[in-house]
C-alpha cells in the first residue's frame, strides 16, 4: 500500500512538531525518517498510524483519505521504541493477540492461529521461546517478537519507531541487516524512524531528512549523502569540516587562506563551505596552499588513518582528515607539526 501525507501540521502547546509536511511513500519501499531528536519524525510516524491526530492536513492510504479511519481499522503494524510487549502474556500470546482480537467472523480457528503464530516465530527465528515471558528475553529478542506481533495481522504498512534504539552496537548491526533481508522477503511498505544516519543510509531504500518539523531532503541514501541539499543535511550525515568565508574572484577567502572553489556565487557573497574528512588533503606547511593547521592526534585503524588538527592561530577550531594509511606514513606526521589543508572538493552554501 502506498502512503501519502499532505500538509500535515501538529503542535504540542507552543512547540511545533510538524510544520506543513508533505511526503509520498511508494508501495513496497523501506523508507527511513531521519533527524535529530525533537525533529518531529516520531510524531509523523504516529500521525500516519493514527495514534496522534494531526491539527491539519491529510493522510492518504492508496490515494484514499484515511483521516476518518480509526487506528484499529488502518491495518498498520506498529513496532514501538520500547517494544510495548504485553508483560503478562507469553511470547506466543503476544504474537497471537492481533489474531484473537479480530471480529468473530474474521477470526481464524485456534489451530490456525497456532500455525500462523509458530510460522511467524520461525520467521523471526524465535520459535523456541514461545512459552517465555517478555521479561525473560534479551533486548534483541524482544525487538523481534514485537516485529512478529506487528506482522501477525498482515498489515499493509509497517511502521517502526527507533527499532534499534535500545540495543547495543553489535546486536543493532545484526538486526538491521536482518530487517533489510526481511523487508526484501515481505515487501510490505515500511517506514522506520531513526536518529542514526549510518542506520538510515545502510537499511533504507529512501531517506527523509527532517529538521525542526520540516522535511529538509528526500532521496536515496547515495543521493542525500553525496548531494546534500542544505547545510543541515550535510552536517547531519557524518563528520564534516566547516569553513566560513567570502567568495572572491580567485577562490574562497577563509581568514588569511584562499581555498580553490568553483561554486556559482557572486564575489563578495558570505558563504559556508563543507568538506568531508576524506575530501581534505594534508600538504607540507612550506607549500603555501590552503588552510594553515597543526596536527593534534594521529589515529591509525585498518586501511585508513584519521588525523585530528587544530586551526593555526585558532586553538578552538578542529579539523578532521581521513587519509590512506600509506599517504599518512609518507607525510610522517607528528603531534604539534604545522601543515596545510587543501580541500579536494568543497560544497558551498549561502550563509544566512
Amino acid at each position: 500500500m502506498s502512503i501519502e501525507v499532505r500538509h500535515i501540521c501538529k503542535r504540542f502547546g507552543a512547540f511545533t512538531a510538524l510544520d506543513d509536511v508533505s511526503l509520498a511513500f511508494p508501495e513496497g519501499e523501506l523508507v527511513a525518517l531521519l533527524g535529530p531528536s525533537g525533529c518531529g519524525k516520531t510524531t509523523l510516524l504516529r500521525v500516519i498510524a493514527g495514534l496522534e491526530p494531526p491539527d491539519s492536513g491529510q493522510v492518504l492510504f492508496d490515494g484514499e483519505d484515511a483521516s476518518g479511519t480509526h487506528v484499529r481499522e488502518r491495518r498498520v503494524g506498529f513496532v514501538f521504541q520500547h517494544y510495548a510487549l504485553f508483560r503478562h502474556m507469553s511470547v506466543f500470546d503476544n504474537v497471537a493477540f492481533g489474531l484473537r482480537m479480530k471480529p468473530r467472523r474474521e477470526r481464524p480457528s485456534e489451530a490456525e492461529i497456532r500455525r500462523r503464530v509458530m510460522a511467524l516465530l520461525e520467521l523471526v527465528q524465535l520459535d523456541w521461546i514461545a512459552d517465555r515471558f517478555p521479561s525473560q528475553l534479551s533486548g534483541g529478542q524482544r525487538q523481534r517478537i514485537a516485529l512478529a506481533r506487528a506482522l501477525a495481522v498482515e498489515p499493509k504498512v509497517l511502521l517502526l519507531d527507533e527499532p534499534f534504539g535500545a540495543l547495543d552496537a553489535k546486536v543493532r548491526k545484526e538486526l538491521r541487516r536482518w530487517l533489510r533481508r526481511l523487508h526484501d522477503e515481505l515487501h510490505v511498505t515500511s517506514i522506520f524512524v531513526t536518529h542514526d544516519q549510518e542506520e538510515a543510509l545502510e537499511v533504507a531504500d529512501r531517506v527523509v531528512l527532517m529538521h525542526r518539523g520540516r522535511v529538509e531532503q528526500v532521496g536515496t541514501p547515495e543521493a542525500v549523502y553525496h548531494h546534500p541539499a542544505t547545510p543541515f543535511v550535510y552536517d547531519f550525515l557524518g563528520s564534516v569540516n566547516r569553513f566560513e568565508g567570502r567568495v572572491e574572484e580567485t577562490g574562497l577567502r577563509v581568514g588569511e587562506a584562499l581555498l580553490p572553489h568553483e561554486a556559482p556565487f557572486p564575489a563578495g557573497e558570505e558563504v559556508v563551505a563543507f568538506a568531508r574528512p576524506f575530501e581534505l588533503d594534508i600538504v607540507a606547511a612550506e607549500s603555501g596552499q590552503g588552510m594553515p593547521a597543526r596536527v593534534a592526534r594521529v589515529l591509525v585503524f585498518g586501511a585508513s588513518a584519521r588525523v585530528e588538527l587544530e586551526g593555526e592561530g585558532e586553538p578552538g577550531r578542529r579539523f578532521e582528515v581521513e587519509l590512506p594509511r600509506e599517504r599518512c606514513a609518507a607525510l610522517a606526521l607528528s603531534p604539534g607539526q604545522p601543515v596545510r589543508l587543501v580541500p579536494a572538493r568543497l560544497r558551498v552554501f549561502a550563509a544566512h
Partner: protein
Amino acid sequence: MDAVAALPIHEIPVRRIAVRPVTAEPAWVRRALIALALAFFGLFLLLPLAAVFVEALRKGWAVYLAALVEPDALAALKLTLLAAAIAVPLNLVFGVAAAWAIAKFSFRGKALLLTLIDLPFSISPVVAGLGLVLLFGGSGWFGAWLAAHEVKVLFAVPGIVLATVLVTFPFVARELVPLMQAQGREEEEAAVVLGASGWRTFWHVTLPNVKWGLLYGVILTNARAMGEFGAVSVVSGHIRGQTTTLPLHVEILYNEYQFSAAFAVASLLALLALVTLVVKHAIERRGDFAALRRGSLK
C-alpha cells in the same frame, strides 16, 4: 591428583578473617533497634488486641456466644456487611475510572482531581459525616425535597452507606494511579493498533497489569468500610438493631457497662480485620509469585 596442588597459587584458600561489611551497623545497635521495635509493637498493638480477646472471654464461651447471636448484634453485623458490600464495588468502579483518567490522559483539572481524591484521607471522618448531615438533614440543602418524597437518608441505611462510600473513596484509586502511571500508555496503544476495541484493551491488557494492585486496594477499602466509626456515627442516629453498625454497637454496649458483650463484638470486628490482613498477605505473596514466574523480580 591432589586438589590443592592443582589450584593456582592465588586460589589456594586462605584462613578466613571475619570482616564486618563496611555498611553494617555493630551487632548491639541492630539488637537494640530490633528490641525497641518489638517492644513498641507489643505494647501498643499486640497487647490491646490480646486484651480485647481476654476480656471478651472472661465470663466464658457461653456469654461470649450469647453476645454475638443477640438480635441487635446480628443486625449490626448485617448492616456492616451491607455497607461494605455496596461501598466496595462502587469505589472499585470509581477508583478504576479515576485512575485510568489520571494515568492515561491529560486534561484540565487533573492535578486538582488527584488532590481531591485524597481528601477523605486528610479530613476528619466526623467532618465528612457532618457534611452529609448538612446536605441531607431536615434543614439541609436537600432535606425539604427528601422529606416531601418520603426518602429517608439520615438516621437510616442510605446515610450509613453514603458515609462509608465517602470515607473509603481514595483507596482503590490511590493504589492504581502510581501503578498505571509507571506502566504508561504504550501497551494500550499496541493493543489498539492490533485491532482491539477499548473494552477488550482494558480487559486483556490494562486490567491484568494492575490486578494485584486492584485487589489490594479492594481489601483496604473493605477493611476501612467495616471498621469506620466517626462518619457513620454522625449520620446513624444510633437506633439499636436498625442503624448501628458493628463499631457503633460496640460503643453502645460499652457505654451501657456491658463489657463482656462489648468486647465480644469488638473481637468479632478484630477477627474480620485479621482475616482481611491474612487475605492481603496471601495476595501479596501470590502477586510476588506471579511476578517471579514472569521473571521480573529476578
